[in-house]
């Protein structure tokens, strides 16, 4: 990473979904704040892993970074060009939307449903080449597809090229999806839980392949996962960052090993706890949260959104929204505990004996 201009720049991004309340219901529609006030810069050759619980908005944020999801607030720029202005033809469009769209690609969680079941692997992979590199002869296209298949260890490539998606294993489908994205010559690929559905023994292999290709093709990656160990594997190997999301907000972001070994936000510590290790002597103890279930994103808590579950929460956390504070080199965290002389330290601890805390201590 360097001080160069970012490839993608998100500024105060907000994605709010209105939920239809139904026929003949004239009350205010409910708004789900999937992403709320996120700033993020992604550079060339950068890897960012977004982690968080289901419903925290990590996929929505990922889709926003590749211009698949239109934000309801804030701006997203690709090499300085506002993506949605380009799409709408607003102002001076320096980079046409069509080019931007091509440079930002996605690999879905379920590769099975993103590959056309009626087309052979060869046809699936040749179509992006036909579309974007029309000058290529059909022989060159064919050779390009075969060499890519070989590169991801799908050998003999002629055999694989002739198969239909249902004749591939889960890991092989995922590779085809990865090649298809790479054939567009993208600057950034969003991999949405791309390894979660694979067996444990195949995950490392797939992640190694993604890292190798990321390096060879100079592509940046945004990797979305609920699993901190996968996130760490990808981000640490590539010198990338891990971003932790909670209820639509990026609560902590920093270099991978820093997030794993020196987590600052209480929520990051919760995720660290939730990641199993292979040491049976380390029985983990109680979950370090006051409540198990994530609050309703339609009605997020006031102040710091984590205060209803946070074991460190004090009264001020329910009232004030924490800013983003520096916690180290490239390491930022949204928690008052970063500031030594913050009002937080003199504020009253929040206790809720009535529910969460009492439940967790019961039985010990």
């Amino acid at each position, binding site marked *: 990473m360097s001080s160069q201009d970012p490839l993608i720049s998100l500024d105060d991004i907000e994605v709010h979904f209105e939920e239809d309340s139904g026929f003949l219901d004239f009350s205010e529609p409910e708004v789900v704040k999937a992403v709320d006030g996120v700033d993020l810069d992604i550079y060339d050759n950068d890897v960012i892993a977004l982690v968080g*619980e*289901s*419903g925290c908005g990590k996929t929505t944020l990922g889709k926003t970074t590749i211009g698949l999801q239109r934000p309801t607030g804030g701006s997203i720029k690709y090499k300085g060009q506002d993506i949605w202005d380009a799409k709408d033809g607003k102002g001076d469009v320096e980079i046409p939307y069509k080019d931007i769209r091509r440079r930002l690609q996605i690999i879905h969680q379920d590769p099975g449903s993103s590959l056309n079941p009626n087309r052979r692997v060869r046809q699936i992979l040749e179509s992006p080449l036909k579309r974007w590199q029309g000058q290529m002869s059909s022989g060159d296209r064919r050779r390009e597809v075969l060499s890519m298949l070989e590169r991801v260890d799908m050998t003999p490539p002629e055999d694989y090229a002739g198969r239909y998606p249902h004749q591939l*294993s*889960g*890991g092989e489908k995922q590779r085809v999806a990865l090649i298809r994205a790479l054939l567009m010559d993208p600057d950034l690929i969003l991999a949405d839980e791309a390894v979660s559905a694979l*067996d*444990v*023994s*195949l*995950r*490392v*292999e797939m*992640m*190694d392949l993604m890292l190798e290709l990321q390096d060879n093709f100079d592509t940046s990656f945004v990797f979305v996962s*609920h*699993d*901190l*160990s*996968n996130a*760490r*594997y990808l981000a*640490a*190997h590539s010198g990338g960052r891990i971003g932790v999301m909670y209820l639509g907000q990026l609560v902590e972001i920093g270099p991978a090993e820093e997030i*794993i070994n020196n987590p600052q936000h209480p929520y990051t510590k*919760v*995720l*660290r*706890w*939730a*990641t*199993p*290790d*292979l*040491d*049976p*002597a*380390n*029985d*983990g103890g*109680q*979950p370090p*949260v006051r*409540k*198990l*279930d*994530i609050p309703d994103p339609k009605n997020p808590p006031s102040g710091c959104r984590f205060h209803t579950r946070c074991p460190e929460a004090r009264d001020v956390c329910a009232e004030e929204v924490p800013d983003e504070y520096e916690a180290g080199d490239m390491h930022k965290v949204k928690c008052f505990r970063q500031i030594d002389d913050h009002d937080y330290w003199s504020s009253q601890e929040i206790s809720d004996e009535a529910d969460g805390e009492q*439940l967790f201590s019961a*039985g010990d």
Partner: protein
Amino acid sequence: MSTQNTSTTATDSGSDRIIELRDAEVTFEMDRGTSRVLDNVDLDVNRGEILGVVGESGSGKSMLAMSMLDSVDDPGILSGDVTYYPQNDDPVDVLNLSDEKLRQLRWEHISMVFQGAMSSFNPTMGIREHFVETLKAHDADVEEGMDRAHELLSDLYLDPERVLDSYAHELSGGMRQRALIALSVILEPNLLVMDEPTAALDLLMQRSILTLLSKLKEKYDLTMVFITHDLSLVAELADRMAVMYAFELVEKGPTDRILYNAAHPYTRSLLNATPNLDAPLSEMRPIPGSAPDPVNVPEGCSYNPRCPLADQECIASDPEYLEVNDVHDVACFHWEEAEAQIPMNVGRSDTGDAATDGGADVSGPDRPDDASDAGGEDR
């Protein structure tokens, strides 16, 4: 986490066993040939333990779960013996029960939780009705049962009235799965078999549910079989582990033996392939090759094409279980070489010394709660 009380009771012929599988085999006739999706499995589950069964997708682990309740779907054919030992009653031959007896056995004695809670609940029925119907179907006292339902739901950190008044789709995935666990133990079964009960949930919820399960187990005196593809997930929960590969159980033993002194090359490679926050990054290694097709399982040891230790013997014949020690079995001719040939990630070898000393450590503390004491020296 500790092992089961191995020194005395386990060796007493079957007195503390709750269920026993012998030569359990499931086959499907297909156009391409016979598909054997469970192959000659022998397994004992001890009363009061948590047994973790680990296998990758397509290794036959769900068939193992279904065999315990004789609920393999047609046209699958289950053969072998499954014997259930009630606490103070005669052993039950599960595969030769009348339909009515089998219906009673399920849920009242042996209960099961599947992966997708959404498809386990009827979408047109409220959660409360599921509890009431289940109690009625098994002639249980509904009022007493619903009191128990309240207690179970709050044991699982749910608001009982809110959950009971909901439909399945109104609950989050984690709440739904917990409600399903409560429903599965509403008739106070002795054995709870769980097939990937947390797989669709995110890690925080998975881990929290495991914590709750170990409490539930203590409070309601349950025996649990927890089936998963994720070895690291059950490592903390299980007293004993059984590892499946290609429709067979290749290794069984106390959890700390499996983690520190795995004897089967597959188990060792699987451990090395598991992403782990504590292991050095460079030490994670995928397992080359892929698991076999059930119609076309390799001759001899089914792991031989992927195994670095394989030789002619492994191709010629299928290994029987060999005893690593009296609580640890492995189906591998060359297990004694595995430790040297397939070194484990550095992260774990330094803690492994304690366990290498052998039996004394293995038969150590009885209760999982004591594990923190036992682990003190490691940290």
